[in-house]
């Protein structure tokens, strides 16, 4: 074992831990109050895959993705160091792989077998990019940063919060060391616990995706990164011209320890060959090299490069054909083409086609939503819309003064709004279900929706009926919506005292020619032309 060099591996592990902790911290802080300067979506904005596909599918330059360009430059210099040192999902897999190691098959296949499926990631990449060219955004389903954001933000954190909160409540009830428990309760709520328990629809789906990828680690370490990750495929392509490379100096005894240790299957030949695109610069090989001849450097001399396993011509043609076939498969959408389904989108996401093209389904808006009303769509509006955010007012409404979702959106699919702009932002229209609404169905007075309505001129009006309340005998008044004032925030539906389904519901924007909509859209276009692609100050694209 080479003591001096194993320090590099230790350094890498410390850096990995630091980036994972930073990632988790930013997930934690993606909540009210949003830190003024912390760029909570910086990891997402560092993904060249998201940058490329979001810009392709929305056909616009998105300034918020400057960090991704930095990562590309980093990759040119240091190869796939992002995968080995920075990627929070890669680090997560390193951890889970370690736990799975005792169940993994011991017999290690030879290098050729190991690398047989490496090209799959190029197929994924080709299809994802091709779909983006046709304006279909599916990169978020496969981007590892997106997967990590969804898993930690909408699965791991809510689970953690649930367990911690229940434990604390039991401690509070037990009256055991009450002073200490009260202090702990307060400290926990001020630091790591959520204001109220976050609950995400279909979190089990996200959990299943995550667990599935983790379990692939039973076959090989970093199975996802080797064979499937489209972001890794991008880095792989760039790495072929990178400066940092592995060299094996004279003195190699061909003991093949490095080959056995390599978690990416990048080392071939007699231990001296390295596939530059596969190596993630984890420095495990030089840590285990008994002769100390495995080394990394920037020198341009004789590198023993193994041929990188690329996509064969046949494979590429197949991937392109698959990608093109996927376009109609995803876009020929019964639910949407027939107008059967339309969501109440978060503020500023009112142009559905544009929104679908720009949203990368990362879940940040759902994570930050102050009322918890933003929830992932499943298949109700077709596969294309899967995991995009929609407002479920019965769970949480759109808070009048809140502009958090636009501030965290990594792509600008949700624009940054000032408070004044937000007040004028129409996201839907409310309507009454007269078969349920209490004054309509039961002839009893009720005005919860009217009293809550946040527009300065109320969007709900109580009108005299000439009837009386059947119990109190007071004059009965019934509520009416004023659609030209209503912004569709859903507070009425949220607060309606009826159990389960409310008597007032928020549906999509009623009037497609609403002058307020035209104003909003014109303002967005003006801003976009001025080069504000969305994003928070300090994150690259802020205003």
């Amino acid at each position, binding site marked *: 074992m080479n003591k001096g060099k194993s320090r590099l591996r230790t350094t890498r592990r410390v850096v990995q831990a630091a980036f994972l902790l930073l990632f988790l911290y930013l997930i934690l802080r993606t909540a*009210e*109050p949003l830190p003024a300067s912390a760029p909570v979506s910086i990891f997402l904005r560092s993904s060249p895959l998201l940058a490329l596909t979001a810009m392709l599918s929305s056909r616009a330059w998105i300034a918020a993705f400057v960090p991704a360009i930095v990562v590309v430059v980093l990759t040119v210099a240091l190869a796939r160091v992002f995968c080995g040192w920075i990627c929070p999902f890669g680090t997560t897999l390193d951890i889970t792989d370690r736990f799975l190691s005792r169940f993994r098959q011991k017999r290690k296949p030879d290098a050729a077998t190991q690398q047989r499926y490496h090209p799959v990631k190029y197929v994924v990449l080709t299809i994802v990019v091709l779909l983006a060219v046709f304006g279909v955004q599916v990169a978020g389903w496969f981007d590892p940063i997106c997967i990590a954001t969804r898993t930690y933000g909408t699965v791991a954190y809510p689970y953690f919060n649930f367990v911690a909160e229940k434990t604390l*409540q*039991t401690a*509070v*009830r*037990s*009256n*055991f060391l009450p002073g200490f428990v009260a202090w702990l309760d307060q400290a926990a709520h001020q630091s790591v616990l959520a*204001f*109220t328990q976050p609950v995400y629809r279909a979190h089990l789906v996200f959990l299943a995706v995550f667990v599935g990828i983790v379990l692939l680690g039973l076959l090989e370490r970093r199975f996802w990164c080797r064979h499937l990750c489209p972001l890794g495929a991008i880095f792989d392509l760039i790495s072929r011209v990178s400066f940092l490379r592995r060299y094996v100096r004279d003195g190699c005894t061909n003991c093949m320890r490095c080959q056995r240790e390599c978690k990416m299957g990048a080392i071939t030949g007699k231990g001296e060959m390295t596939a530059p695109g596969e190596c993630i610069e984890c420095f495990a090989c030089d840590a285990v090299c008994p002769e100390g001849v495995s080394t990394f450097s920037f020198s341009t001399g004789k590198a023993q490069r193994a041929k990188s396993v690329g996509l064969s011509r046949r494979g590429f043609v197949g991937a392109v054909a698959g990608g093109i076939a996927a376009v109609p498969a995803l876009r020929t959408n019964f639910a949407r083409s027939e107008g059967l389904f339309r969501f109440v989108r978060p503020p500023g996401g009112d142009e559905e086609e544009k929104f679908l093209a720009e949203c990368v389904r990362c879940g940040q808006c759902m994570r930050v939503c*102050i*009322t918890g009303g933003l929830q992932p769509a499943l298949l109700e509006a077709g596969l294309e819309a899967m995991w995009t955010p929609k407002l479920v007012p019965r769970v949480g409404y759109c*808070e*009048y*003064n*809140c502009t958090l979702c636009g501030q965290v959106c990594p792509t600008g699919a949700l624009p940054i709004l000032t408070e004044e702009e937000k007040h004028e932002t129409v996201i839907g229209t409310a309507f009454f279900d007269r078969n349920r609404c*209490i004054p309509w169905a*039961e002839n*009893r*007075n*009720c*005005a*919860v929706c*009217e*009293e*809550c*309505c*946040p*527009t*300065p*001129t*109320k969007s709900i009006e*109580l009108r005299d009926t000439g009837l009386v*309340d059947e*119990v*109190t005998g*007071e004059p009965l008044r019934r509520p009416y919506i004023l659609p030209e004032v209503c912004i569709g925030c859903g507070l009425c539906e949220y*607060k*309606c*005292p009826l*159990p389960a389904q409310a008597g007032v519901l928020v549906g999509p924007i009623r009037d497609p020619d609403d002058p307020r909509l035209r104003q909003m859209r014109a303002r967005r276009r003006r801003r976009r032309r001025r080069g504000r692609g969305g994003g928070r100050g300090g994150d690259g694209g802020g205003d």
Partner: protein
Amino acid sequence: MRTMTRRGFLREGTLASAGGAAFALGLCSQCGQQPELKLKLPKENSLSRDLAVAHGADPAQITKAAIDALGGLGKLITPGDVVMVKPNISWDMPPALAATTNPDVVATVVELAVEAGAREVHVLDHTLNEARLTYKRSGIAEAAERAGATVSFVRGKNDRHFKELPIEGGVSMTSWPLHDILTKANVLINVPIAKHHELTRLTLGMKNLMGLAGGERGAWHPDIAQRLADVNSAVKVDLTIMDAFRILVDDGPRGGSPDDVKETHQMIAGVDPVAVDSYAATLFGLKGEDINYVKAGHERNLGEIDINKVKIREVTA
């Protein structure tokens, strides 16, 4: 030293967790035996039974003047008391739009309570808009904390502090989840703001107690008068200080437009919640009789609805 094997670790770990679980269960079984929660009783006091109305251009000064006109908080609070001050923090609105109690008024009440020797002063409200936003924008959290209060959030209608408590003598309901601060505090000072309200015409002091109720409060509305009379019979308010520095005359209870705000520059204080509300109604050109829940409160002997029968001490500050 014995080495810890994995098997040994698992065995001992299992034993230890079983022990821990048994201990935790033991603790839990204790919780069931906790003393039954009881709502606070009225606090005996020697405050004047009159109604104090203070006029002036500074909200803090007229608050103090109104309280002093009744004899000062020293006549209500004895050293060591736990005081609950209940402002209206319901809406994410700045003080100037008169949707929430004026922060200077809340701060003054807290200061005077601390001066009178209160051991703890609590400020909280079950808000309609998101609590973190309303506590901040209303200016109340900061002002109350600076004045020495413990300000805590109510985390939605299922907050664990809401406990099903009996509504003694309730006509429309016999129990409801109420904030457990009402079982810990022995003095309750209600600090509402006078506002327009479409359903009941006005939202006043008696209605402000809705902020101490959890659960589906909206379901009270068809029977709002009796429900509010119920909750006001069960929850004993010791002193009401009605913020009428600015009142909201239309589009209430949330407002949102400066056109709906009227500067009335008054503070009304009294131990009789019905009388305070009746007087406040006159600022809107109405009488207590016009407000269904005030009328119901009077019929339940919660106070005097005819302000001509109440002695009013007018002061200027």
